[in-house]
C-alpha cells in the first residue's frame, strides 16, 4: 500500500506548470476554433475550382455576337485574360508566343476566348473595333474577343492578372487555371527558359490526358476591374 500512497502525490500534479500549459493551450484552441468557425460560416469567395464545372457566362464579343460557355459544351474552351498595354501581355504578344498558342489551339479545334475586363477609362479597355484591329495587327488567332467592361466574366473566374489562363474540357470541367509559363517577368528572353505550363496543359487536354500542373501561379498586371 505504501506504493499506492506514493502514487497519490502525482494526482495533484496537474495543478502545477502543466495546468498552466493546459490553460494556455485551451485558450489557443478556443481562439483557433473560433477563427476557423468564423471563416467557415462566412460565405466563400466566388472562385473557380479545378476539376469542378467551370462557371457559366454569357458575354458579347467584338463582333457583336453573344458567346455562352454552356452553349460550347462538347468543345474544349481556352480563356485568356488580356490588357494589350500590360507589359507582361506585351511580352507574350511581341514574341509571338500567345499567337502560337492560339494557332495550336485552333488546329486542335479548341475555342479560344480572349477576355478584356478593363472598363472604360482604364488601361486595356478597347472598343470592339479596336479589339479587332489589335487581333489583326498582332496576327492573333482567338475564336472571339469578349468585351467584359463590367468585369462579370472576370469576377466569375476570379481572374486577377493579365495574362491569366483557364482551360475547360469538353464536359465543361475546369482543368487548368494559372499562368502561361513559370517565369514571372516582362523579359522575352525568359520565354525559352520557362516551363510552358499552358502549352503543356493544352496538349494534355486535347489528347484527353490529365493535366500535370493544373494550378499554377498566374502572373502579370492586375486586372483593372471597374469599381462601380
Amino acid at each position, binding site marked *: 500500500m505504501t506504493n499506492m500512497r506514493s502514487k497519490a502525490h502525482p*494526482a495533484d500534479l496537474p495543478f502545477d506548470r502543466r495546468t498552466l500549459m493546459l490553460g494556455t493551450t485551451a485558450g489557443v*484552441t478556443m481562439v483557433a476554433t473560433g477563427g*476557423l468557425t468564423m471563416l467557415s460560416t462566412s460565405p466563400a469567395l466566388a472562385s473557380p475550382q479545378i476539376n469542378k464545372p467551370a462557371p457559366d457566362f454569357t458575354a458579347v464579343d467584338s463582333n457583336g455576337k453573344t458567346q455562352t460557355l454552356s452553349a460550347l459544351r462538347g468543345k474544349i474552351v481556352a480563356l485568356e485574360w488580356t490588357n494589350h498595354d500590360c507589359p507582361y501581355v506585351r511580352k507574350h504578344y511581341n514574341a509571338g508566343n500567345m499567337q502560337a498558342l492560339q494557332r495550336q489551339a485552333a488546329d486542335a479545334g479548341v475555342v479560344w476566348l480572349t477576355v478584356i475586363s478593363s472598363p472604360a477609362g482604364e488601361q486595356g479597355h478597347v472598343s470592339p473595333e479596336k479589339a479587332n484591329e489589335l487581333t489583326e495587327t498582332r496576327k492573333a488567332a482567338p475564336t472571339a474577343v469578349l468585351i467584359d467592361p463590367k468585369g462579370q466574366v472576370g469576377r466569375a473566374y476570379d481572374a486577377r492578372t493579365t495574362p491569366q489562363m483557364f482551360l475547360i474540357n469538353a464536359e465543361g470541367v475546369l482543368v487548368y487555371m494559372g499562368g502561361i509559363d513559370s517565369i514571372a*517577368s*516582362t523579359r522575352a528572353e525568359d520565354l525559352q527558359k520557362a516551363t510552358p505550363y499552358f502549352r503543356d496543359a493544352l496538349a494534355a487536354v486535347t489528347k484527353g490526358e490529365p493535366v500535370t500542373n493544373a*494550378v499554377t501561379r498566374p502572373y502579370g498586371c*492586375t486586372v*483593372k476591374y471597374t469599381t462601380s
Partner: protein
Amino acid sequence: MSGVFERKRWRRAAFSASTFLALCSAAPAAIAFESTAVTSPRATVTLISDAAAVAPGQTFRVGLRQKLAPHWHTYWKNSGDAGSPPEIRLSVPEGATAGEIIWPGPDRFAAGPAMNYGYETEIVFPITVTVPRDATPGQPFNVSADADWLVCERECIPESGSFRLDIPVAAAPTPASDDVRAAFAIADARRPVPSPWSARLVSEGDAFALTVVGAGLTEAAVKSAYFYPASWGITDHAAPQQPSITDGTLTLALSKGQTFNPEAKADGLLALTDGGGATRWFEINPSVHAAPAGNAPTASLIESLPLWQTALFAFLGGLILNLMPCVFPVLAIKATAIAKLSGGELREVRRAGTYYTLGVLVAFTVLAAALLVVRAGGTAVGWGFQFQSPLFVAGMSWLLLAIGLNLSGVFEIGLGVTGTGYSLTQKSGHAGSFFTGLLAVVLATPCTAPFMGVAIGTALAAPVVICLLIFLAMGLGLAAPYALLSVFPALARALPRPGPWMLRLRQAMAFPMYASAAWLVWVLSQQVGDFGVLVALSGALLVALAAWIYGMAQHGTGRGLIPRTLAAAAIVGTFGLLLQLDGAPTSAASTQAGVASANYEPFTSARLASLRKEGKPVFVNMTAAWCITCLVNERTTLSTDAVQQAFRAAGITYLKGDWTNRNPEIGAYLRSFNRDGLPFYAYYPAGGRDPVVLPPVLTESIVVGELERAGRSALASPQSIK
C-alpha cells in the same frame, strides 16, 4: 539644422568626385557610394554602397535604391497576385563574394480583387558583399549591377538599368554619406528578424489559421497583424486575415491559396503593427498541420502535450478513489463475495464487471459533458479560465483549501447521498450492474468530491478532448479494481482489510491540497504583490471559518440558523475579497521599478513636457511589477551596458513610470497612445519631434537601432519638409 548643411556638403563632395572620375577615366561617371541614377517620372533608381571606401576583408552592403513617385510601388520577393520582384545581377571583382537580396518587409496594396506586396515612397534592396583579403589599398573595387524592376500604380511599367560603383580600397573603411546610410536605414527598419515565437498553421476544409504563441503578443501590444507568405499559392492574398489576440496567443484566420499543400512548409513574414503605428516583420516558419475532420486545433495540440501523463495521473486519481472510506468497504465486501464464487457464476460476475465499468464510464462522461456545457456557457459570457487571472488563482487556492479541509475531516460533503444510493445497487442482472457502476460514482461522492474538484479545475482549463480524456481515465481508474476482481477473483485475497488506515490516508491526502493552495498564493504574490497575499490569506481564513462552522453543524453541535448564517456570511466575505482583487495591482511588489538608480528619473507628465520643450531626447519606459514582459525587457535590454551607454551617448533622459499601482497620470499618458496596457516604450528624439513607439518585446539591437534611426530621420526631416 546641421543636418541640412551636412547633406549639402556631401552632395557637393559627391558632385566633384563624380566630375573628377568622369574626367579621369573612360568609365561611366560614378561615385563611390551612389551610382548615377536611372530616372523616370515614376522612379529614381541608383546603386548605393554603405561604404565610401572599403578595407580588405571587409563586409559591406550595396543596394538598389528606388525613390518612387507618390502612389507608385515596386515589389517584394512574393509580389502577391500581380507584378514581379526586382532582379539584380551584381558583378563584383574577382575574389569578392556577394550574397542574396535581403528582402525588406513589405506593405500590401489592394487593387480590386487582387492584393500585391511591395513598397512605396523609397526602398533599398540590400546585398552583402565581402571584399577579398588580398585587395590592394589604392585600387578601385568596382561593383556593377544590371537590374530589372517593375513599377506600378494602377498600371505597370517595366524599367531596367545598369549601374556602377567605383569604390576605392583603403586601409580603413569609410562610411557613406548620411543620406545613403539613411536610405539603408529604411531597409534596416524593415529588415525581418527571426520570430521569438512558435507558429503553426492549422487547416480545416477551405479555412485555415496561423497561430503564433509567445510572450509579448497581447491585445495592447499588437494592433494589427498580417501574414506575408514567402511564395504564391499558400494563402489567398486578397482574403482578409482576421486576427484575434488573447494574452500570448495571436491567431490569424486565413484563406487557403490555390496550391496550398498541407504537407509543405509555409514560411513567410508576420508583420505586427503596434498602437503607435510602427510595424515590425518577423520571419516565421510555421509547422503545418492538416486537420482530421472536426477538431483540428486540438488534434495538433495534443502532440505538444504529454497527454499520456495527464491520462495516467487521472487514472491513478481514479484508482485512489477506491481507497476512500466510502468506496473501499463496499469494494472489499464485493471482493470477498466474488472470491467465494466459482464456475458459471463466475462467468456471470465477469459480465457484471464489464457492465459495472460501463456504468462508471457513462457517469463520468455525463459529468464531463455537464462540465463542458458549463464551460461553454462561461466562455459565452466571457470567463477567462486562466491562471494568469489573479481572480482565478485566488479562487482556485481557496477551493483547494476547502478540499483539503474536507479531507482533513473538518466538514463532510453530502452525507445523505451515500445512504440513498445503496438500495439501488441491489437490483439484479446486467442493468443492475450497469446502474451499480453508474451509482458507484454517486455513492462515492462524499469521498470523491475533493478529487473531482481537482479534475474539474484541470478540465476547466483543458481542451474538450483532454477534458473528456481526464474524466474517462479517472472513471477507468475507479472501475479498474472491481473489473479486475471480477476477472481474477483470486486477487481479492491480496486486498488489505478495511480499517483506520483508510481515514489516515484520506487525511494525508489533504496535504498535497494545502501545498497546492500555498503554491497558488505564491503565484498570486508574483502577480499582484503582497496585497494579493493579504486578500488570499484573508479569504483562506474565511473559508476555514466557514468550513469549521459548517462541519460543526453537520456533527449536530450547531444545527441552528446562526452558525449557518455565519458560514454563509464568511463565504460572502470571501467573494467580497475576490472583488477587491479585481484590478487592484499593488505597490509593494513594485520593487523592480522602485530600485533607486542614477540612470533614470521617475516619470511625470510635467518633467516630460519640460524636457521636450528644451528639445532634449527622452526615452519613456512604462513598467509594472506584474508585467513580466516589462521586467524581462528591463533585465535583458534596457538595463544592459550597451543600451545605457547608447542612452548616455545620445544625451537621453530616461524616464521610468511605475504602473504597478493605479496611476491616473500614467493611465492618461498611455491612452494618448491608444494603449491600455504594458509594456510601453516611447522614444522622443531631440528637437521636440514626434515620439517613436517601440515594440513590446525589446532587444538591444531594436532599441539601439531605433535610436539611430530616429537620429537619422532627424537629419533627413528637413528634406521631407521641403
